[in-house]
């Protein structure tokens, strides 16, 4: 394995506002004004930093919410699994924005998007091999060194597997976290979607993730597509409320890793802010219940 095991000193900053172990929502353009004007009661906000790398109104909005809420950066463009290495310009731009905004958390995906100069705007699954593991560890090391901080790595939802994969996805994630010192962003909806699509056990997947490494949880809705052959494919479209089975898995997740910051994501057919806040309130009731059971945060 190519990762430099536990060799990266990853300092935590001192100035930034930590993201609390409460429910937060993904802030999208459609809700900028409503959030800035109404200042809803919500624990924290998460944004895609790629949407704020320019200036003007978007960056002004980000600066405005920064004063009122802890922020998390959830990147979608680093392509941590690309064999050809990181896009250094993109990394530098992200670093500048991180230094400027000082988000409490920074996360990215276990996926790839870039090959031979083309950028495919989606989070593509990796062949889960020793070579890919070394590649991801190398790239996560480089990102953490550049940012001067630990990042969280999110488990993907996927619709295909490679014939030559040799490592179960949960073991792959755990190995990256162990070798690079990064944390895990446990997307409970993604676990459910991928488990259904590939015939895995969502419970076994969850149980195999190192609890101490989980620093954040994502929740979102997904779509169910009935195929001609009668099979069902679940598509992670972030276009609806969280499904009951995913709430149930979430309850197991916080029993496993303790209460951690939990995000409601919604990216398609975005509803009014009140719907997102309502979903966040529901997540908060699970967190309260977990606290009552003594499932306190155990993240390292």
């Amino acid at each position, binding site marked *: 394995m190519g990762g430099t095991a536990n060799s990266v000193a990853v300092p935590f900053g001192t100035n930034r506002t930590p993201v609390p172990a409460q429910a937060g929502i993904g802030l999208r353009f459609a809700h900028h004004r409503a959030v800035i004007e109404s200042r809803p009661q919500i624990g924290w906000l998460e944004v895609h930093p*790629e949407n704020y*790398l*320019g*200036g*003007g*109104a*978007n*960056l002004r909005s980000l600066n405005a919410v920064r004063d009122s809420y802890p922020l998390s950066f959830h990147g*979608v*463009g*680093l*392509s941590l*699994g*690309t*064999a*050809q290495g990181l*896009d250094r*310009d*993109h990394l530098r*731009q992200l670093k500048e924005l991180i230094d400027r905004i000082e988000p409490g958390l920074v996360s990215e995906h276990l996926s*790839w*998007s*870039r*090959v*031979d*100069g*083309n*950028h*495919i*705007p*989606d989070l*593509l699954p*990796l*062949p889960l*091999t020793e*070579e*890919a593991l070394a*590649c991801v560890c190398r790239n996560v090391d480089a990102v953490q060194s550049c940012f001067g901080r630990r990042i969280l790595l999110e488990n993907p939802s996927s*619709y*295909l*597997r*490679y*014939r*030559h994969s040799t490592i179960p996805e949960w073991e792959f994630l755990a190995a990256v976290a162990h070798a690079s010192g990064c944390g895990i962003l446990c997307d409970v909806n993604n676990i459910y979607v991928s488990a259904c699509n590939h015939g895995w056990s969502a419970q076994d997947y969850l149980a195999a993730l190192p609890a101490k490494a989980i620093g954040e949880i994502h929740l979102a809705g997904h779509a169910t597509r009935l*195929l001609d*052959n009668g*099979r069902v*494919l679940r*598509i992670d479209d972030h276009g609806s409320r969280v499904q009951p089975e995913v709430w149930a898995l979430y309850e197991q997740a916080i029993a496993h890793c303790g209460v951690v910051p939990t995000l409601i994501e919604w990216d398609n057919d975005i509803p009014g802010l009140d719907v997102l806040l309502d979903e966040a309130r529901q997540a908060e009731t699970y967190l309260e219940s977990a606290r009552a059971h003594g499932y306190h945060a155990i993240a390292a």
Partner: protein
Amino acid sequence: MDTMPSLHEAQRAIGRAIVLGDVDGIAALVVGDAISAADRIAIYRNTATGTLLRALRLSYPAVESLVGEEFFEGAARIFIDGCWPRGALLDDYGAEFAGFLADFDAADSIPYLADVARLEWSVHRALHAPDAEPLDLHRLALVPDGQSGQVRFVPDPGLGLISVHWPADEIWHAVIDSDDDAMATIELVSMPRWLLVQRAPAGGIDLQRLSYPQWRLAQALGAGVPLAQALAGTADVDSTFVPEQWLAQLLSAGRFVDFAVDAPTPA
């Protein structure tokens, strides 16, 4: 595949399948079973092209309004097939769409469409440009007299200077404001027009139509041509044009953010 593909080989094959639709050999790479490997690739292709379509819609709202949703989507999907992004920032995607529309036969009945698209791209660039402080004019006053001709200006990163043939500015305003009356009165005459686009300090867009000498001087200075050379370049175009006055207007309007002075040429 007989031997295990390298990570790069696998990514190249998946990339070709998604970008080019070339799914030959994909079944050997991707587990098929109840859903074929090609159908699995199609899920990713649909997501990616849908994302790019949304990005184009955000950058070209007036174009979409002029041609309608269905036509826009059809044109955009053909464009996407031939032009995938080179980087992760979707704000940077779609610069070539105006050129594509200029050569797109199905849009021949709207001759001004490509010009409106060119203007929209300048507007998009201006809206998303990095923040920059206008040049402090006191700094310019410190340049020794003998060296002022060697000043090279740095334009605001959101400054756009484009030339069009159709009244793209009037059309853009009418479409964005949904002003059908204004649209009906626009004289669709093809003749050269010179436009300046910049993000207004208070937000929104500053869009101005310039005279040719104004545009040419702004263009030259924005491209970093030394001041004396840029001023001399406007001498022959219009005897009524006073370049020093226009320069003062450009400076006071914050079109430039910095400057450098070339070292004096050795005698």
